[in-house]
């Protein structure tokens, strides 16, 4: 069982590498939109807040797209029927998948972040803080996105608009990260604790609820 578990992780890793072309395209779109944002506001003197919240919202949408695409591809009905009859519980598979999506997105962000900061006129001294902020909050975002994706990809669902209706659920994390961008000058490590706590909460509930929704709604 353990041996097969590591083989499963290896195969998921291969799958993730094959899918990373899509993330690359998404990041190119991100850079283009950042350039447009910076260009249109070149006469205003912006602080760190406006560009940072723009970047944050773009990253949020990117991860939403990515999660929804991967879920509709990798949890279609035929695959799900096999997953349900496997000795590994669906929660574990969902967890591995989420972590792979996370690594894929965050590694691309680490690579692109200096370029993005230069485009948005943010001081490169903030590079490390912004990376930590993104890395911590992206975890929770992906775990929540997996829950909403599992509801919306269901073939029994007649309204495809529901993915918009579940967007309010992300608001707590957006509110808190905005609060952090206000405080980023003062270097408060204590606020990061919120993200860790929120992630632990998600870690407990999200794979459970996601796999439950996939089981009940997609077949």
């Amino acid at each position, binding site marked *: *069982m353990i*041996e*097969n*578990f590591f*083989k*499963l992780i290896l*195969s998921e890793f*291969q*799958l993730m590498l*094959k*899918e990373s072309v899509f993330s690359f395209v998404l990041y190119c779109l991100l850079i283009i939109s950042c350039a447009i944002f910076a260009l249109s506001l070149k006469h205003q003197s912006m602080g760190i807040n406006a560009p940072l919240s723009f970047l944050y919202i773009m990253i949020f949408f990117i991860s939403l797209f990515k999660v929804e695409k991967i879920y509709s591809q*990798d949890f279609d*009905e*035929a*695959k799900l*029927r*096999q*997953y*349900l*009859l*496997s*000795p*590994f519980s669906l929660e574990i*598979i969902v967890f591995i998948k989420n972590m792979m999506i996370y690594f894929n997105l965050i590694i691309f962000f680490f690579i692109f972040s200096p370029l993005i900061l230069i485009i948005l006129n943010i001081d490169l001294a903030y590079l490390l803080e912004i990376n930590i902020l993104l890395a911590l909050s992206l975890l929770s975002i992906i775990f929540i996105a997996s829950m909403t994706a599992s509801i919306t990809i269901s073939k029994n669902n007649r309204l495809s608009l529901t993915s918009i209706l579940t967007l309010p659920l992300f608001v707590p994390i957006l509110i808190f990260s905005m609060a952090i961008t206000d405080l980023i000058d003062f270097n408060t490590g204590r606020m990061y604790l919120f993200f860790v706590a929120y992630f632990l909460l998600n870690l407990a509930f999200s794979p459970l609820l996601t796999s439950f929704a996939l089981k009940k709604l997609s*077949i």
Partner: protein
Amino acid sequence: MIEVNNLSYARGNTLIYKNISFKIRPGELLLVQGANGVGKTTLLSNLVNFIDPLEGSLTYNNLVIDNHIASQHFLYVGETNFAHDTLTLSQNIQYWLSIHNVKFNNSIKEKSIKYFFQELNLDKKFYQLSYGQKKKLQLLLLMLVHKPVWILDDPLSGLDERTIINLNSLFEKKLENKGIIILASHQNISLNNYKTLQLS
């Protein structure tokens, strides 16, 4: 032994089937037949506990079939393909064997791959294969995953003569070993004795 009593199922507000009862003992094959849309696939999904019945009971060796029992004893092969398109054929085989927690044994694996795929390049991407070749990957699970009950949804469509003969001999061997096969198909199968269930 699989026992089904007064099974009914409704999707939304439409009744799919009502009061189905049958018994299958070890070493028997049940062929589920019927026109399109009478609920063959739904009945098989019901047996594996993918969906909950409206009324009625399902038991395997006098135990109510739940997720745990189903994942221990049942192997399901559906009509749509489950492989990952971007992986190669050998990567796909590796992936689904690890999902089913199969003990890795190279000689058996190579023998069964040869049995179905003959001389095919295993490094081909999965989306480059034809429909029949894709179907064979699903049937490969029958040889490699050892579970007493097979539930097969339309396994014979799109296969060539030789594979159908191979598959039939596989069925015979399974029935000799006291396995249970439940099969939904439009074609008749060339076995000597089997039960049929006509849905209407």
